[in-house]
């Protein structure tokens, strides 16, 4: 168990969003949070990334309270790609990826050969090598997302947290990003925790899905066990036809109508 939440309550100010959350993430899994808008998925990811301090309960990285660990130590273990990120358009891809080495450098220390090699490796892994000198503003949405993932890779993390990595991308880029995520998991053994809106994507690309509803874990399990008509009715209030994707050996569904 590499990352876990124990009896965690989350909220902003007086407002409570997540109540009594218990989650365990195991090394090498791809875990995807799904759930309706406003159910608290993103909030949970924010707390797992040490950004949002729980009102109650603890988040553990390995077996230590994540909020008592050094931030740079956490950043060497966990890389985060939130929904909201900004970089000036005139920044070059290589420049952005170099920032991923920040948690590995001491105050005032410059990047050495090893760091540069890791940046090259991250460029290569994400297929951004050709684009390394381009400015971010000149990239397509998919390329930009890959550049951010490359930055996260340059952190050399063990865990990658992704909040809706496919939002605003067209379908080919969505597949591209998710294929990359799957490949990183398979070849590097990265533990992946992400939030996805597309349930079919979640079913296809995750080992385990965690459904969040009204700030609580509704259910969790392997996609083929979890994704049932009953589940879709209870969590998303929809009627759907369920099918089997033989090529990828995973379930998928066609939404039919909303239950009133």
């Amino acid at each position, binding site marked *: 168990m590499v990352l876990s939440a124990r009896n965690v309550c989350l909220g902003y100010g007086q407002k409570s969003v997540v109540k009594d959350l218990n989650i365990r993430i195991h090394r090498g899994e791809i875990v995807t949070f799904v759930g309706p808008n406003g159910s608290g998925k993103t909030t949970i990811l*924010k707390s797992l990334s*040490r*950004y949002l301090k729980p009102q109650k309960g603890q988040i553990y990285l390995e077996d230590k309270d994540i909020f008592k660990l050094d*931030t740079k130590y956490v950043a060497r273990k966990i890389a985060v790609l*939130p929904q*909201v*990120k*900004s970089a000036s358009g005139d920044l070059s891809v290589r*420049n952005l990826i170099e*920032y991923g080495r920040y948690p590995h450098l001491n105050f005032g220390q410059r990047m050495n050969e090893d760091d540069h090699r890791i940046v090259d490796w991250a460029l290569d892994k994400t297929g951004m090598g050709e684009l390394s000198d381009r400015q971010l503003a000149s990239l397509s949405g998919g390329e930009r997302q890959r550049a951010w993932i490359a930055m996260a890779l340059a952190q050399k993390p063990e865990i990658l947290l992704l909040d809706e990595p496919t939002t605003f991308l067209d379908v080919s880029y969505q597949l591209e990003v998710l294929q990359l995520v799957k490949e990183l998991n398979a070849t590097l053994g990265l533990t992946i925790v992400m939030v996805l809106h597309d349930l079919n994507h979640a079913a296809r690309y995750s080992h385990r899905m965690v459904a969040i509803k009204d700030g609580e874990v509704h259910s969790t399990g392997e996609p083929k066990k979890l994704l049932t008509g009953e589940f879709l009715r209870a969590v998303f209030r929809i009627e759907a036809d369920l099918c089997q994707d033989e090529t990828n050996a995973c379930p998928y569904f066609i939404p039919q109508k909303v239950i009133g």
Partner: protein
Amino acid sequence: MQQCTTDEKRRNGCRKLLILSVMGALCVVSFLISVGKGSLDISAVQVFKAIFLEDNTLNHQIIWNVRLPRTLTAGLVGICLSLSGAILQGVLRNPLAAPNIIGVSAGAGFMAYLVLIIFPDLYYLVPAAAFGGALIATMMIYLLAWRQGAHPMRLVLAGVAISALLGAGINALMIFYPDRLAGIVGFMVGGLSGRTWPHFHLLWPYAALGIFIALLLPQKLNILLLGDEVANGLGLHVERMRIIFIALASLLAASAVSVVGLLGFVGLIVPHTARLIIGPDYRYLFPATAMLGATMVILCDTVARLLFDPVEIPAGIIMAILGGPFFLYLLRERGIR
């Protein structure tokens, strides 16, 4: 491929270092012009001799007592204001941010007014009052913006509100004491007329401290610019760094403003100009901004001195007249993305 990218990197770094050296050279040239030009023109060689070798010559007197302290003050002020602007544009993620947005101008202006109008006998306290006013205004803005963290947008809004409030205070003072405005106008426009060693000595300790700290932290500002969550994910103490940067920007601007008045334009356009020339990486942008800022204020002050000699115009006016069009030209030619 490996070799190629390394070459690429090296060439890029070299280009930036070259730009920085050119900027450094410009800085030196502007210094020589400023110290050399005046009612008596002194050549660069003579300037050098007068500063380091001679004493008691006429050149030495003019340079050492009049021009050198003024030029040095101008340079330091330029560095302080433009660095402050560069920091704020980054921390507040707002291209229009300048020292006035964290209340430095309004705070300093209000306190300076207060002293000059209510206690005119204490005029020598104006720099100290302006300095204190600027820092207090920044602190008020920061506290007002704080709600589980000081979000940049709330900081900007609180800054606008507090500045408006202090501006109203300034206007009220002006209306109640219309007869005591003479000394104030110079402070509001900003200029270096009559600035000499005591002013320089007032400025340099704070300026040096601020510049030293600023030059240590560019990478942290780079990271902070990626957004709070990303920066946190990379291991940066987001709130801690934000307050350090704002305090730093306030310190830099307050020390400059206390000595030369509200020389506004530098903090806004020098960082943008430097960025257009050398790119967004603060490790290069900080030194570039500092040198460009020094060059710009020194040159503007020189023009202000010489244009209608023997009558001086405030450097702030020259700055706006020359800087505005130049900035617009850069925008059109290079474009801000």
